[in-house]
């Protein structure tokens, strides 16, 4: 192998390690839902290449109001689905859409886009 090949190979393997770390090992920060006057927990979620925040801590057994706003023209995120709670909503671009759920039992409830490429989760405690 030439020196160039060795250098390129090492750089390539570093890129692989970087991909593993950046996409798989990185854990998103958690957001805690804000509780409004009526005991309703509220969270604003921005949809832009994913969900921001993607990990939301809520209290189990209490209603949660998720307000999704899709801030991108890509139709990838045009639907948000919460399979565990049987909810699906269409998100027009730049228009907040409210999805109301009540996670009865503690646990993780995933929410994804219609094609399951964007992922986020509600962590009910």
């Amino acid at each position, binding site marked *: 192998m030439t020196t160039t090949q060795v250098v390129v190979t090492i750089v390539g393997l570093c890129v*692989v390690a970087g991909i593993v770390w950046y996409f798989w090992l990185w854990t998103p920060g958690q957001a805690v839902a804000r509780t409004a006057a009526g005991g309703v927990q509220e969270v604003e979620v921005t949809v832009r290449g994913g969900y921001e925040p993607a990990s939301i801590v809520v209290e189990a057994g209490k209603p949660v109001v998720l307000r999704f706003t899709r801030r991108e*023209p890509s139709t990838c995120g045009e639907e948000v689905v919460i399979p565990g709670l049987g909810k699906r909503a269409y998100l027009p671009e730049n228009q907040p859409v409210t999805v109301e759920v009540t996670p009865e039992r503690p646990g993780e409830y995933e929410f994804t886009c219609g*094609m399951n490429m*964007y992922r986020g989760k509600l962590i009910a405690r």
Partner: protein
Amino acid sequence: MNTTTDARTEGTGTAGGIPPPCEACAGTTESVLEAQGTPPLAGTEALERALGAVPGVTDVRVEPGGRVRVRHAADKVQFADLKAAGDGAGYHLARPGRPDDVDEQERGREREYRRLMAKFWFAAAVGVPVLTTMLIELVPALREAAMPWHRAIGLAAAVLSLPVLAWSGGHFFAGARNALRNHNANMDTLIALGTGAAWLYSTVAVLAPDLLPAGAGRMFFDVAVVVTALVVLGQALELRAKGRSSAAIRKLIEVQARTARVVRGDTEVDVPVEEVAVGDTVLVRPGEKVPVDGVVLDGRSAVDESVVTGESVPADKAPGDPVIGASVNRTGAFTFRATKVGRDTVLAQVVRMVRQAQSTKPPIGRLVDAVASYFVPAVMIVAVLTFLAWFDFGPEPRLSYAVATAVTVLVIACPCALGLATPISLMVGVGKAAEHGVLIRDGEALETASRLAVVVLDKTGTVTKGRPELTDVLPLTGFDAGELLRLAAAADRRSEHPLAQAVVNGARDRDLDAPDPETFEAVPGHGVEAMVGGRPVLVGNAKLMRRGGVPPTELEASAARLADEGKTPLLVAVDGRPAGVLGVADTVKEDSAAAVRALKAMGVEVVMITGDNERTARAVARQVGIDRVFADVLPGEKVRHVERLQAEGRPGRARGGRGARLVGMVGDGINDAPALAQADVGFAVSTGTDVAIEAAGVTLVGGSLRGVVYAIEVSQATLRNIRQNLFGAFVYNTLGIPIAAGALYPVLGILLHPIIAGGAMAASSLTVVTNANRLRFFEPKLARGERP
């Protein structure tokens, strides 16, 4: 728009499902509105204050999710007043009308489609010249001739392809950047990386060829442009196809009536359907749609309820019968009292249930989801490793080969096909079922229903109609059958006993005119005694005959035969002499036998369960062709019988292969709820006023057993479709990626061109959607074909 619980309904009591009026709110009415617009819900106090300030309003409640309930004096407050107050507080208030947002979604899709097509045409227009110049490079003779202009051609291609990447493929780069920010990677990431790398490398080859090893100056501008064009075209077509996948739901929404003719005092007023209030009297003429749910007040007609129930035979409606909104009135005019409006109608419930079901996942999709979340980064890693392999061990020019293969890997991988495979089929399948009056609760119920080994049918109301009907008229010699029935019906006219009603209805169906009796006495536990046209008539059991001094000996043979057939014999005596026997039975529904045959043909064992005695149960089972019967079962014991059937796992027959056999239970949603919940799939038979039945995985809106057959057939078809999709997507990716990486090169010398790879990728996700859409044309063979 009004949901009334008020003075209007006083006097009619609580009949027809109208909630009783509350004491504090007599004379008021409740309007339900929807708050739309952008202010956060935390600020609803402003809205509450504004609405509370409207004269006549007594109470305002804003519910999470934007529903607003306003209680106000019945006649003083108009919608416009409330709307104006809402506007003042920064909220747009609307009447809760059409139950969904499909229109808006459709418009959004159309806009996006046009945008994508414009991007495609631009990319295609640029693509043709760029592709031509690159082809020149491939033909040695032409390349020689074009050599002096090599650099100029390359520069032109670089400049031309830049706007294609920036505009036509702009959303890939934006999407990739957005995803990257969230530590995500998706299809955008792959396409952006692939086309971006191709363009950058080619640009370096044009501008600074000295940086690259000799001979590695191959340009890929055509790849960048054509792959962008193909993938954008694929996305546009996919968007179109996805619109068709939700056609079933759109159809359900579109069948709604737009206006209603409401009777106000002496006049008839045409109003938008949103303004019909509970308690309103609505007139429906032949050919018109029933606007909302209600109960017939006056008039008779046949109503086609097929849009909601899937039942093609129109249902006869008489005063007291429920009518369903969106059904079509066929023969006569009638008026009805509205009992459910807006979001509460059966149709709205159906739409909600279907949409909810479409958002769930069958278990089969879970593994794929787990795979999908690792897929894109894995492809990126494969691309890097492919690059290294070609760069370190490949033939010269190694760098060109390394770039080409890495780009091919990136653009051939199709995460969308994997991600779409399950949900898109489920969406079509669940919608298809709903068109036939079969509402499937979720993906799990659908998957389980496709593998049922046993179906347990509750007898009353499921196999049978659930109400007694006159089946036999057996006069003794010397009596005319018509006369016997006429007299018996006259005697029974004032009785409210179901058996008596069956006789009266039987006489009416046979066009016999039963007069009112002069005297009438109901003898509990025996029957009735009456005087009809001066003749004493007894209708009842043997005890009644003996009590009236009529020895029933001559009638006993006929009575015993009827009892053997599972019918209830009614003995009739006229003028103090035995006259004949009438047979009354809970008759089987017309299509029960066909449904049982169809289930058996699918290899499903059919079992009947009933609280009736063995003899009656056997008689019904014989009529419909069921061999196994559990009779004399107390309501609470049904659960145990279902459990026992589940435990009867015979591995050879169990298609589930998990030991226990999957058992479906069909019954009504109330008495049979525990058994429905115990079963692997509960099928609730709904007669059409309430469809969201908690314990059931499947609701049969039409109430016909054919629905069970249909549910199983459509589930099997959907599961088959999902498997095809998953198999296709899986095989495509597992074969496509290694071939793209050059796995065939060492042996066969075959290397995939990146443009072919991009085309394959665009085609593969389109194939998945198209295959799912094939389900729309699914025709049940057994549920239809075996109809008597």
